[in-house]
């Protein structure tokens, strides 16, 4: 099945810093999403972005489908950005929705 790799696995940021998270995938996909898992365990949809660039406040994401990667940018990080960020991809058809192992982000004040 499709493989998903996220980097870096762990990241510690000073509040106000910027960061980039990366998701590489091994095959073409119909769907790519970024999720944030907050400290209470909820999985929050951040972006549905099979291709192109989207922005939502301090977060933005870019997917280059032809090169099989996606980037999530966090600008001016805040402590509420802490948590785990997951990338998920779906190749389409009767295939599994595959996840990377996540990026654990800690923002310190």
């Amino acid at each position, binding site marked *: 099945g499709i493989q998903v790799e996220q980097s870096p696995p762990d990241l510690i940021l000073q509040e106000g810093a910027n960061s980039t998270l990366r998701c590489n995938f091994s095959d073409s996909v119909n*769907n790519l*999403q970024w999720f944030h898992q907050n400290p209470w365990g*909820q*999985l929050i*949809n951040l972006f549905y972005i099979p291709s192109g660039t989207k922005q939502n406040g301090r977060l933005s994401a870019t997917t280059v489908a032809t090169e099989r990667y996606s980037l999530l940018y966090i600008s001016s990080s805040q402590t509420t950005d802490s948590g785990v960020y997951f990338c998920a991809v779906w190749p389409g058809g*009767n295939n*599994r929705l595959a*996840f990377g192992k*996540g990026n654990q982000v800690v923002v310190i004040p």
Partner: protein
Amino acid sequence: DAGITQSPRHKVTETGTPVTLRCHQTENHRYMYWYRQDPGHGLRLIHYSYGVKDTDKGEVSDGYSVSRSKTEDFLLTLESATSSQTSVYFCATLGQGAEAFFGQGTRLTVV
């Protein structure tokens, strides 16, 4: 967000007992998935469904079975619960435009 409800939200059960978790959706999404989340392992796929009565195994399916007799419900059964199945279980559905949504999770403790 999609209407996805997991029940129960919390459960404590004894080793050897059967347990059924329910995922209910109101969005008529075709695809549904069960994951478990454990520290250090991220989200691991247990089983998934691509239609009524159509299911397939994920990477950690041993000890679990599923059923989908109607579009809106996807049931996960632990046939004989073991302590290694203590985990947080998440259900997800895939909707129009192939966007996935998650339920709130079920915290299961097997004692």
